[in-house]
C-alpha cells in the first residue's frame, strides 16, 4: 500500500541550468528537448520573446528564460538547448520553446522534498517559482512556466515595447 502511494506521490522533473543555477520543470509539461537551432527574431517585440523556430512544420515561439528571470543573455554554446513545453496561456494550451544553458536529467522527487518559494533571497520574481527542491547536491528551483506567460506578464509586454520603441527611435 505504502509503495503504491509512493509511486503515485513521486513527481518527475526535468532539470536544466541557467547561469550556473539548477532549475526544474515538471516532466508532464515537457514535450521534447531539441538542440539549439537558429531562432528567427520577430521585430519590435520585447527581447525575452526571442523569436520563432520551425518544429517539424509548426511555427513555435521561443522565449529566453534568462531574460525573464532577470539574468543577462549569453552567447549560445553547444550545450544550449530548447525545451519544448506545453503551457497554458489565457486558457489556451500552446507549445513554447524555452532556451536553457544546458539540460541535465530527469529526476524523481518526493513532494516532501519540495519547500514553498522563499520570500526573500532568491533574487527572482517569486511569481515564477513553484517551489524549492532539495537534493543531496543542493537546492534547485522549480519553475511555474504557466505563470511566465500569464496575462499580467503579457500585459507588461506592451509597456516594455513602448519603452523599447522610444529608446530605439
Amino acid at each position, binding site marked *: 500500500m505504502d509503495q503504491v502511494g509512493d509511486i503515485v506521490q513521486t513527481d518527475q522533473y526535468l532539470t536544466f541550468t541557467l547561469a550556473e543555477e539548477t532549475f526544474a520543470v515538471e516532466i508532464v509539461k515537457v514535450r521534447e528537448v531539441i538542440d539549439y537551432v537558429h531562432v528567427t527574431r*520577430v521585430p519590435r517585440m520585447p527581447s525575452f520573446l526571442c523569436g520563432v523556430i520551425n518544429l517539424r512544420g509548426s511555427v513555435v515561439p521561443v522565449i529566453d528564460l534568462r531574460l525573464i528571470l532577470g539574468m543577462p543573455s549569453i552567447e549560445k554554446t553547444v550545450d544550449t538547448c530548447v525545451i519544448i513545453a506545453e503551457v497554458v496561456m489565457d486558457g489556451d494550451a500552446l507549445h513554447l520553446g524555452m532556451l536553457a544553458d544546458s539540460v541535465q536529467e530527469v529526476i524523481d522527487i518526493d513532494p516532501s522534498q519540495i519547500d514553498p518559494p522563499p520570500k526573500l533571497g532568491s533574487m527572482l520574481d517569486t511569481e515564477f517559482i513553484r517551489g524549492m527542491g532539495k537534493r543531496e547536491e543542493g537546492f534547485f528551483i522549480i519553475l511555474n512556466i504557466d505563470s511566465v506567460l500569464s496575462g499580467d506578464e503579457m500585459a507588461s*509586454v506592451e509597456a516594455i515595447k513602448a519603452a523599447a*520603441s*522610444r529608446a530605439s527611435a
Partner: protein
Amino acid sequence: MDGNDKHLETFRQEADELLGEIETVILLIEENPEDDDAINRLFRSVHTLKGSGGMFGLTDIANFSHGLESVLDKVRSKKLAISRELIDLTLAYRDQVGLMLHAGESGVAPDAARVEEIVTRLRALSPSSETMSDAPSPIPSAPAALSLPHGSVVTYRVRFNSHPSLFVTGTEPALLLDELRSLGECAVVAHFDDVPALEDTDPETCHLNWDIVLTTASGLDAIRDVFVFVEDICKIDIEDISSDAILDPDAPQPRLGDILVHRGDVAPADLHDQLNRQSRLGELLVESGRISSTKVISALSEQQTVARQQLATKNDSVRVPSDKLDALINLLGELVTNQARLSQIARNTGDMVLAVPVEEADRLTDELRDIVLNIRMMPIGTTFSRFKRLVRDLSGELDKQIELVTEGAETELDKTVIDRLADPLVHLIRNSIDHGVEHPDERIAAGKPAKGTIKLTAVHKGASVVISIIDDGKGLDKVAILKKAKEKGLVPPDVNLSDKEILALIFLPGFSTATKVTDVSGRGVGMDVVKREIDSLRGSIDIQSETGTGTRIDLALPLTLAIIEGLLVHVGEDRYVIPLSAIEECLELTADRFATTSARNMIQVRGTPVPLVRLRDIFGLTDPRPPLEQAVVVDVGQLRVGLVVDQVIGNHQTVIKSLGKLYRKADCISGATIMGDGNVALILDLAGIIRNAKSDEASAIIRNTEARRSALV
C-alpha cells in the same frame, strides 16, 4: 431517434437552400415580372418545401406553403399578375418559414399571428383559390425525394396511345396531361398522324396520341395513378429512361437516332441508311416518309430533356464539412513546405537521378495545391444575393428609392474570406443606403434621377480580388469629417490634411459623422470594425468620394488566406516575405537615385519622389548595413513607399503559418512561413510597418523639437 434527427437536419439544410432560392428568385421577379422561368423556379421551390415539410411532419410549414403555392400557381397560369403585395408576402413567408425551421435552435418562436396575417392576405390576393385548388396538390410520395435531389429524380417516357372511344367514357385527356405536369418537369408532344380530314372527323372519337417525357421524383406509381381510369381501354407504356445507357452521365449526349431506334420508331437499318447521307437526320427521316414529323419532334423534345437531365447530373456536388477541408489545406501546406525542401536538397546535391523524380513531384504538388485551393473557392455571388434583400428592405424603411446593381458575381474567392467579408460588406452597404443615397426629393433637387443606385462589383486584379461599393449619393462631407475629428480630439486642431487623409479619418475608432443615430447605422462603432476585419484578412480599403456625386469604396482582398505569392528579401540575418500583390518594382539604392543629396530618405522613381522606410531601423537592427542596399517599392493603400532591404532574393510561394497567440501584438508581421532549408521567414504586414514608421518619425520629430526648445531656453 438519431437517424431521424439527422434527416431533419438534412431537411433543414435543404430547406434553407430553398429559402435562399426563393428570396433570390422573388427579387429577380420583382425586377422583371415577365420572367416565366423565374416564376416557375419560385413555384417549384415553394412546392418542394411544402412536399418535404409534410414528409417530415412539419405540417405548419406545409400548410403555410400551400397557401402561397396556390397563389403562385395562378401566377404561373397567368390568371394573376405579380404585384408588390405578392412580393412582400413571399418575402414575409420566407422569413417566417426560416423562423419555423430554426425555432428549436434559436429559441425565437415564429409569430403565429403574423403567419395567420400572411395567409389571410395571400387568400385575399386570389379570392377563388378556395374553390379552385384548396385540395392540396399531390405531395411527392418518394421518401428520399428531398435528401437526394438528383438521385431519386427519374425521367420516364410515357406513351399514351388513346383508344378512339376515350371521349365516350367521359375522359378529358387534357386533364390527365395537366395532372402529369404537376408531377414534375414535363414535355408533351401530341401525334396528329391518325387525325382524318376535317369532313371525316367524328368529334366524339379521339384520334390523338401523346408522347410525354416526364422528369419527376414521384415514382412510377404516381404516374400509373394518373391513368388509373383509362388504362383498361388505352395503351399506356411507361418506361424509365434515366436508367438507360443513354442517360449515363459519362456517355455522350444521346443522339436522336438512338432515341428513335430505342423507341422502336425507326429500324436501325433505316437509320444507318439515312446517316450515310450527311444531312439533318430528323428532316431526312421525315422527307423519306419513314416516320411522321411529330414523331421526330417528340423524340427531339426527349433529347432535350435528357440533355438537361445529364447537365444536372454532371453538376452534382458533394457536401463536405469545412473542417475536413481545413485539415486538407493544412496537410497540403506541410506537403508544399516539404517539397520545397526536397527540391532544394536535390539542387544542392546535383544528382540527376534524384532531380528527375523530384521535379515530377514538384509539378504534382503544384497541381495538387491548385486543385485543393480551388475546392475552397466559391463565387461571391452567394453573398451578393443577400444584399439585394438588404437594400430592398432598408430603402423601403428609409423611404428611399435605391437599386442595387451587382457585377462580377461569378468572381471566386476563398470561402473563409467570403464568410468573413459578409459583415463588413453589410456595414458598408448600410452606410451607403443610410448616409450616402439621398431622399428622392433631394435627389431631384440636385438634378439626379429619383432612384439612387448602389453598385456592388467584384473583379480579379492580380493575386487579389477588388470588391467595390459605389453609390451615386451625396458623397462624404470632408469638412464635417475634419471638424468632427478635431472635436473628438482624434487629430490636432491645427493640422493640415489632404482629402485622402481626411477620408481615412472615418476608420478611426469612435468616429461617426451621423448626427442622428438610426437603427440602420451610425453608432460610431462601424468603420473601424470594418477596417480591422479587412486588415485581418490581409486586405486593404480605399475610399474615394466627390461631394454631390457619390462615394466609392474599394476593398482589395487576397484570393486565399492559406498561400500567398511573395518576394523573399534579406534584412540582417533573417529573411522576410513581402506580399507580391503590393510590390511595384525593385531597384538598387545607388547614389544617383536619391532625390536630393541631403534628403537620404527620398528617392526618385520615374520622376516622382518616393519616401524610404528602412526595415533595419524599423526592426531595430544595429549591425552595419551592407554597402549597397536595395529598395522594394510597394503600394500600401495608395501610398508608395520604398522598403529598404539588404538584398532581394526572389519569388517565393508561401504557405502562411500563424505566429500564434504569443505574437498577436507583433504588428509588423502578419505570419510566418517555413523555408526550404527549414528556417522560418516572417511575412511582413506592410500596413503595420508604415504605421510604425510614421509613429517612429513622429516621436523623432517631437524629440528634435524638444531638444531645440531646451537649447533655446
